[in-house]
């Protein structure tokens, strides 16, 4: 009898540990640490933008959902509500300036506001896609 109880207790403990593991690492897993994540691609803003402009399907297949590090001359730092956007203008379209736009991480806002137009910068971010005017990145952080 004692043996059965031990087996049941052992299985119960294993189940509990598995349940905690699933809850912590699967159901409640945290978002990636985009600031410290190694970029999947490192390229210039012009290279990123022109890939989508020349072939949107190829651009999406290559960069959508990836972390990229892009470098180029900064055009503007915009504020909207509580959000800061770092913008690289590479073209003029019917929507106005077009290029690469990055919404910065919360902890990057103060640093981003110190950037000057024309300054050479490298920004890391998560590519959400191309919306016919801009290549859009989220979770941006300044690399240099």
């Amino acid at each position, binding site marked *: 009898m004692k043996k059965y109880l031990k087996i049941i207790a052992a299985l119960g403990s294993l189940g509990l540990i598995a349940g905690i593991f699933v809850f912590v690492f699967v159901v409640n897993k945290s978002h990636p640490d985009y600031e410290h994540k190694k970029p999947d691609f490192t390229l210039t803003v012009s290279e990123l933008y022109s890939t989508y402009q020349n072939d949107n399907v190829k651009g999406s297949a290559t960069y959508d*959902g990836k972390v990229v590090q892009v470098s180029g001359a900064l055009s503007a730092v915009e504020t909207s509500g509580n959000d800061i956007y770092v913008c690289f203008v590479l073209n003029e379209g*019917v*929507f106005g300036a077009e290029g690469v736009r990055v919404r910065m991480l919360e902890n990057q806002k103060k640093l981003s506001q110190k950037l000057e137009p024309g300054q050479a910068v490298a920004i890391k971010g998560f590519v*959400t896609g191309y*919306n016919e*005017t801009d290549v859009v990145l989220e979770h941006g952080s300044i690399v240099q």
Partner: protein
Amino acid sequence: MKTTTFIILLLTGFALSGNIQAQKYATKTGSIRFYSEAPADNIEAFNKQVNSALDTQTGDFVYRVLMKGFQFEKALMQEHFNENYVESHKFPNASFAGKITNTDAVDFAKDGTYEVTVAGKLTIKGVTKDVSEKGTFEVKDGAINGKSTFNIKLADYGVEIPKTVMKNIAETVEINVDVTLAALNN
């Protein structure tokens, strides 16, 4: 006509009809929130890089949103949203292209909040449906803030919820659109 083509033609129309610049307003930092209340878990996500444009003379109004740009509190929800429900790798954008049906009720030259009805085509996951929704345009200090809250049935747009999680996800989700449009300079 594909919605993408319609939007491009609409925007080209904006460019070609550029006699009075203040008639055209746009933003790239609009916000769309969706919210679903269900017994197991409420689901909420925001996208804060929504492209939107308005021609105040014709009443043409468009917006476009990248599906991968929706941010969820839980990473797993975000994964399921992109991979299983909206299949954002196949359908990266959602868009709306339509018109204010009661432009006479709005004086875009005068500060104030105006009730509007916007009718047009909403495309999600490659499925386009005619919609007509109420909202407001607030004209203030040269900018126009458009807001609308409406509901969509996920099944109408081909978003299938597996039976195993049906109790956790509502069939209808609430959408909040909030865009602050500034006059285009070009």
